[in-house]
């Protein structure tokens, strides 16, 4: 057998799953002593080019409480055409279609290499994707222009049959009717008044036509819903109209007096967007894309008053309980987010402003619905433009890298229970036998809804070993977990992806080294980090840090080898060696430290941390630092101040920022223009190398990171200096040498 490293990697490749422990302690007691919980990072829609979906329905266990999907781990009696569920041990008949089954004629789901398998099922009418733009018009002219162009451009990126809608807001909220010719129509709402979904639908004239249609004729005509909404129209039909409409969009005309913020009714606009979709297209894939250039300043969900003299809340205010509007606004957006999630829609937030825009209050909209959150300085930056463009990126097979309305169902074998999940999801409150009473993250359920997800969306799922110490598991017994993800593919197909994995049990007392060796420190770091960040959302920062510290200490206590009172004797095995370092950087990361970050920034960082896959998460925790020099090929170096050398170019990737830093000497050379001299072409190459690498990262990452090119002594160098471990500072730099 290959090393655990390979095993882990292979599992990740195949199933998109990484467990903190790959050999599981067999009793509850032992499991708790492991400090790091048994948990996994699941990337439900991990791109699998080699995985052709099968065009039939999965076979389910007939026990109503189980309903696990037939998988390679099931025992099959080919003669009796029976299979035993590996979770509940129920014996099930194969359906008639499987009559021809035999050892040599197995369906795909029984083959071991198909531990992850995707079914395409035909259920219900296919509804096209829906994109509802909610656009702030209280922008600077330049910003608005850029945004309009981006939006117009985006129309060409949408699937032709996708439905689009447009809501603009400022002091008022306008819902634009797109079907009409000639005069452009819009429904206007006051920005200060919250309306129920019913009211909104009444006012938009949606409620009445809907009723007779449903009663009059059964839902036979799939196009019916399309026609029923004048506000959402197929792109191909109103492409031109909408382009013109966007082109004519004006800044909010209401005067903004000196010393005031423009009145921005973000709260109501979102509420109407949600209400509109709720009434017309419940439970279909839909994105509400909110573009805002400032904080909501009126109506429900207002974050700050319109007086410029009162600044928007800071962490300081929040700690002192001085943020007047925060609680109410948060509640408003939470309500909206829950409604949206219940309908299977998602909300993206694209906030571009130099000041805060209220992401702290609105974060739940994106967090609970799986929407994107993008923060920038201006809509007129490549950061926004490219990021936005990337939302509509297509995968290798020409399909949009987005899926909608997913529900994730987790099933476990008896020894395990589900403690919770952390990620862009909400609970579906599916209580079952495999749900633990102890909650980690969003718990109390075995099912979650993920309204929008892409191939990299990753959830952390925490388990609890419930097997009692006195009920040993037979040797060779394996614990199994099945993840069933039903979702709407971007092609509007309904699909079900099923991943079933199994791990060995081991007795922690006798086989600790097995368990230890099967520790996935990277996954563990991310899983612990998610827990920490999750707790940080609701707890005081220092408490979380203390908790993290204690966990680390306990882990080291458990797995370290040391002699008492001798720090130098401390050793950790290879599989744990990096873990403390991750924890160190995690403690310093913006996910847990709010100093020097605005509440919006914190929310933004945490949002992304809670959904990225393991690799990206690690980068976030511990930025990657590459060094380029004449001394050899580019190499990763320690994220430490000692890595900053005069003759090096450093490339730092913190996920959110890409920093290229020219060492002192290099910078001088560059100033002297050596790179332009033919004889120093190598220097030119050296300068170019990090740029190329950075470009590569920039091209692929979502959201697009901030790109910073600086040099020794440059003001932007602070981005680098704030990240590195300050082993050398102006205080000790000289002392170090002595």
């Amino acid at each position, binding site marked *: 057998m290959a090393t655990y490293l390979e095993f882990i990697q292979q599992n990740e490749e195949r199933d998109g799953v990484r467990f903190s422990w790959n050999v599981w302690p067999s009793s509850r007691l032992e499991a708790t002593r492991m400090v790091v919980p048994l948990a996994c990072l699941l990337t439900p829609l991990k791109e699998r080019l080699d995985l052709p979906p099968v065009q039939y329905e999965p076979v389910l266990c007939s026990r109503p409480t189980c309903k696990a999907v037939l998988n390679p781990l099931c025992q099959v009696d080919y003669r009796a055409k029976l299979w035993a569920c590996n979770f509940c041990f129920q014996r099930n008949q194969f359906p008639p279609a499987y009559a021809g089954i035999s050892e040599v004629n197995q369906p795909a789901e029984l083959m071991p290499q198909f531990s992850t398998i995707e079914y395409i099922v035909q259920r219900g009418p296919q509804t096209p994707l829906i994109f509802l733009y909610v656009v702030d018009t209280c922008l600077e002219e330049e910003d608005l222009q850029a945004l309009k162009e981006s939006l117009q451009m985006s129309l060409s990126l949408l699937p032709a049959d996708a439905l689009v809608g447009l809501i603009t807001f400022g002091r*008022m909220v*306008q819902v634009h*009717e797109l079907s*009409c010719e*000639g*005069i*452009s*129509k*819009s*429904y*206007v*709402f*006051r920005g200060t*008044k919250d*309306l129920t979904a019913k009211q909104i639908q*009444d*006012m*938009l*004239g949606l409620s009445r036509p809907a009723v007779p249609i449903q009663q009059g004729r059964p839902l036979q005509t799939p196009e019916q819903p399309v026609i029923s909404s004048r506000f959402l129209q197929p792109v191909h039909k109103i492409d031109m109209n909408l382009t013109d409409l966007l082109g*004519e969009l*004006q800044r909010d*005309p*209401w*005067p903004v007096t000196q010393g005031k913020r423009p009145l921005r009714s973000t709260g109501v606009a979102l509420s109407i967007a949600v209400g509109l979709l709720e009434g017309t297209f419940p439970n279909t894939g839909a994105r509400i894309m909110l573009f805002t250039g400032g904080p909501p300043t009126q109506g429900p969900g207002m974050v700050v008053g319109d007086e410029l003299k009162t600044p928007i809340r800071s962490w300081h205010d929040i700690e002192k309980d001085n943020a007047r509007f925060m609680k109410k606004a948060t509640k408003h957006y939470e309500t909206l987010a829950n409604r949206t999630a219940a309908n299977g829609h998602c909300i993206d937030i694209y906030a571009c402003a130099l000041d805060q825009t209220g992401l702290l209050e609105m974060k739940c909209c994106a967090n609970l619905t799986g929407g994107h959150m993008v923060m920038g300085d201006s809509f007129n930056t490549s950061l926004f433009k490219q990021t936005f463009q990337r939302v509509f990126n297509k995968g290798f097979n020409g399909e949009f890298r987005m899926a909608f309305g997913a529900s994730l169902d987790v099933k476990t074998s008896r020894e395990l229970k589900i403690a919770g999940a952390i990620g862009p999801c909400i609970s579906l409150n599916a209580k079952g036998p495999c749900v633990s009473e102890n909650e980690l993250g969003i718990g109390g359920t075995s099912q979650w809804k993920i309204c929008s997800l892409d191939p990299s969306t990753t959830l952390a799922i925490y388990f609890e070993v419930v097997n009692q110490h006195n009920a040993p598991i037979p040797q060779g017994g394996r614990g199994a977990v099945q993840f069933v993800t039903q979702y709407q593919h971007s092609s509007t197909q309904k699909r079900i992806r099923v991943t079933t994995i199994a791990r060995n049990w081991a007795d922690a007392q006798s086989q600790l080294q097995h368990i230890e060796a099967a520790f996935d420190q990277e996954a563990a770091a991310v899983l612990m980090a998610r827990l920490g960040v999750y707790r940080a959302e609701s707890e005081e920062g220092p408490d979380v840090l203390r908790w993290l510290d204690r966990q680390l200490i306990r882990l080291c206590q458990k797995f370290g080898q040391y002699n008492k009172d001798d720090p130098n004797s401390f050793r950790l095995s290879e599989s744990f060696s990096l873990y403390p370092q991750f924890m160190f950087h995690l403690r310093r990361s913006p996910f847990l430290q709010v100093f020097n970050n605005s509440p919006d920034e914190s929310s933004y960082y945490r949002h992304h941390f809670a959904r990225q896959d393991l690799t990206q998460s690690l980068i976030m925790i511990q930025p990657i630092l590459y060094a380029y020099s004449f001394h050899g090929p580019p190499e990763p170096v320690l994220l430490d101040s000692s890595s900053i050398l005069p003759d090096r170019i450093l490339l730092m990737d913190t996920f959110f920022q890409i920093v290229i830093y020219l060492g002192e000497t290099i910078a001088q050379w560059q100033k002297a223009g050596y790179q332009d001299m033919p004889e120093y072409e190598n220097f030119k190459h050296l300068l170019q190398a990090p740029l190329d690498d950075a470009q590569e990262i920039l091209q692929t990452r979502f959201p697009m990171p901030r790109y910073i090119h600086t040099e020794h002594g440059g003001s932007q160098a602070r981005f680098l200096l704030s990240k590195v471990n300050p082993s050398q500072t102006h205080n000790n730099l000289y002392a170090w040498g002595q």
Partner: protein
Amino acid sequence: MSVNQQAHTGPPYGQPQPGYQGYQQPAYGGQPLPGVPQSQYGAYNGPMPGYQQPVPPQGYFPSLGFPSKGSPVSLNSDTSSLAPNFIGSLRAPPTSGAPPPASGASLPSGHLAYSQFGHGDVQNGIPTSAAPMQRPPASQPFLPGSAPTPVSQTSTFQQYGPPPASVQQLSNHMAGMTIGSTTASAPPPAGLGYGPPTSVPPVSGSFSTTGSGLYTPYTASQGPPPTSVSQGLPLAQPPFPGQPISTQRLPTQVPGFAPPPSSTGIGPSSYPPTTGAPRPPTMSGPPLPGQTAAGPPASQPNHVSSPPPPATMAGPHPGPHPGPPMSGLHGPPPPTHPPQPGYQMQQNGSFGQVRGPQPNYGGAYPGTPNYGSQPGPPPPPKRLDPDSIPSPQLNELPPQQKPRHRIDPDAIPSPIQVIEDDRSNRGSEPFVTGVRGQVPPLVTTNFVVKDQGNASPRYIRCTSYNIPCTSDMAKQSQVPLAAVIKPLATLPPEETLPYLVDHGESGPVRCNRCKAYMCPFMQFIEGGRRFQCCFCSCVTEVPPHYFQHLDHTGKRVDFYDRPELSLGSYEFLATVDYCKNNKFPSPPAFIFMIDVSYNAVKSGLVRLICEELKSLIDFLPREGNMEESAIRVGFVTYNKVLHFYNVKSSLAQPQMMVVSDVADMFVPLLDGFLVNVNESRTVIASLLDQIPEMFADTRETETVFAPVIQAGLEALKAAECAGKLFIFHTSLPIAEAPGKLKNRDDKKLINTDKEKTLFQPQTSFYNNLAKDCVAQGCCVDLFLFPNQYLDVATLGVVTYQTGGSIYKYAYFQLETDQDRFLNDLRRDVQKEVGFDAVMRVRTSTGIRATDFFGAFYMSNTTDVEMAGLDCDKTITVEFKHDDKLSEDSGALLQCALLYTSCAGQRRLRIHNLSLNCCTQLADLYRNCETDTLINYLAKHAYRGVLGSPVKTVRDALINQCAQILACYRKNCASPSSAGQLILPECMKLLPVYLNCVLKSDVLQPGPEVTTDDRAYIRQLVTSMDVAETNVFFYPRLLPLTKAEVDSDSLPAAIRNSEERLSKSDIYLLENGLNIFVWVGVNVQQSLIQNLFGVSSFSQISNALSTLPVLENSFSKKVRSIVDMLQVQRSRNMKLIIVKQEDKLEMLFKHFLVEDKSLSGGASYVDFLCHMHKEIRQLLS
């Protein structure tokens, strides 16, 4: 005058003066170069030379009326330019036919007359009469000129003056009177004042009839009859006294005068019955009929006399003879007469003329068809004895009278007669407002007003121009003291608009205490350093920049340069202090709000409105000579939700914004909603093209209403301007929204205590909304197109309280109603309008404005607030005593209206009016205006129905009028048999008009009158002016077949009674809302063919809404009459063709107000009897 306008405010005045002077001088020279004008003057000068020289400054008169000390220097100024204007006036004089220039004078007779006057000949009377008759225009201009001179001149001169009826004369008379009066009682002066001016004639109607009647006829027909002339003179004198108006007095005067001969003339008038005799003669004397025809009848009517008189009449000759008997009758001759004697000689001429017309009446009677039959009887003007024996005068007749039930309709006062009399007596001369307490001509008379210190009657009319000094008197008489004010009234082109005075940053000069604005009645003292307020007597410093020296008469030297010192009406430019929020207002906006529910779309209304608006927006009101209107426009359509439109000029296509949150209305856009028409023309056109298309398939039948107004209000708020909403609405707003209404129409409530609820709004919501609208200056005009009950009483609340107008087109059909609607719409959009107006009426200490009627809102007890005020809106103000008034100082009214003009300029319009005060009831009754009284009474009653059962209101109305008349009878009329009904001359039409009010749909609805109609009319009447109420309650009935095809005059109206309709004629009846064309069954086919283009009576279609355009003179004539009438009214009247004996005739008969109505209204005769009974009850 026109010159002045051009010249602008202050300076203009100055200039004109010079001009005049210049002219005059040459004229005086005796050889005026410029042909006509000079000569004219010259003629004048003749008599005046002596005067004129000293007076030179008077040159102004033409404009100002008063002699001033114009600076001679200014004379030099460009005379040429001024000349034209003056010419007009100059010409007038020429008529007088300056002896020398003769050339100028076209009218020989005129010259003669003048000359005669000059001489002081007895004959003046005749000539004068002749003159006015012949050249009405001339006489007008003349007046001013003559006026000045007279003042200083001697009596002889005065004589001259009289004919012109100019102010000056008055003054002269006044002086004379007073002198004379010394012997006589105080009251006379007033009488005198009246007499001389034009007013006299009408008033004295009855009196003059005898005396003057004779004269006029003669002059007219025979002109020369010397004999008559001679008589006339003496008679004329008495007439003066007679002028006091009241018939009663006249009689009294007669005796006093003693001059039996003269008295004779009087006698007839006053004691008509006896004198009546004279009339008959006139009657008989065919000559009269022609010219005088109209006049004479009036006299008769006054004294509703029983048939007997006629008999007597027959016997007696014209004025003279009857006199004596009369005198006997007239026991209580007013003191005024005595003074006259002295004057008589001098002034007689003038008076005679004046009265002349009245005498004409006598003639008139015969002239008019109806009368023709019974010319004789009418003469006994004064008394009507419904049941009992005629007045003593008629001793002879008594027997006849006895058949009381058989009252001859022709014997009772005829509105037609009164109108015609006034028209012929006073229509020809300008009404100069310089004198305090003058009673203006009737509203039905066409006359020109010259503002010489009092507001034109077009702006203010009072129920009485002589106010009792004490509240006791006022209570005793029960005559309501009220003024009907139309602050922005439209003036005929020949009259000058109020001048705009700009006092710069300091704003208008005002009294420190009562805040009254500077006006002609303010008294400057201490060499001009201070002025004493004419209202509260407080002394205020004159601001330094306003200081001016006084001349020796205590008048400011710049008197004529400043409109606010010399005119009755003028405007001030308001400073920022007078503006809301201390900010100058922005130009107002018009918002068109169109109902696009199913009904509106289906009937074609939406398309019609949109089409019309496309062109109409180019005719928004403009200020002065501005090239384009400053008014911005906005568009909204609505059904259950509202659609706003962005029509910003930069857009290629309009944008529609739907607001469905009707519970909490707001305006969804700021920029682009209200736009300048020229800038956004294409976008607007595109919008108006598309609106009908967009809603062509609508199935929405429900509408909202309150949110529509709220939307307009919010839009104006957002734009920070005042404005007007034009709402086109079709149905009861039943959609779920604020202000939602339910159908509560219930005819069973009629005649119950709950009937009033039908007039009250369903909910107070609209009252509150109206309040908000007024605060913002948001005026709401409502066009209703109901197919069923839509609760006008409630929908109209906002319109009513914001000073807007309601137009209602029940069962609107495109084919028949479109023209009417479009005409109304055009007029409504184009008419002059002020916004955000506040009006306050200040009065002399002693009386106080206590009650207000009209379309407005009041947040306190003194200020009338109107979001919008247009040129048709009228406010009736009632005054009550809170102290005593003095006869010497009279009573002053100052109506100040602060408003924003259509270009957004903040202005103050000031109207001043001075009234006399009296201690004698007779003076009060002599100076009343029945039309105005009816206007007040109707409004009062119509408001009463909101709070009391209709029956109570009716009874109160009858009771009040009975008291008024009883008081007169008791205190002013000569003692006579209780069986006689004696009506004051000025109020002789009160019963007939009152009966019309009582029979109106609001107070006595017939079964076919809908609740909405009643509410609609109730609100409509409340803002009507006197002319409108006059015709509304007593419709005009014109025999079309009698129309002279060649002239552009209207045929003589006839009384509203079925008896007067001939089966072989075609009649037209109009009441301001409808025009009926009634076709008799026996009408000649040719007429039918000519008018309707069909060959027979039976083929005439009822459905016609306009008369077919046919190329024949009759058709043209009729159509021109219809057009003429339409122009006169503020609303386009609905034309209804009624065929005799057709179903529709029932509707038509409803408007024959002298007849018994189907809904139970009494006939005129019956009502008169009833009134008489009431009066007798009160007296006993």
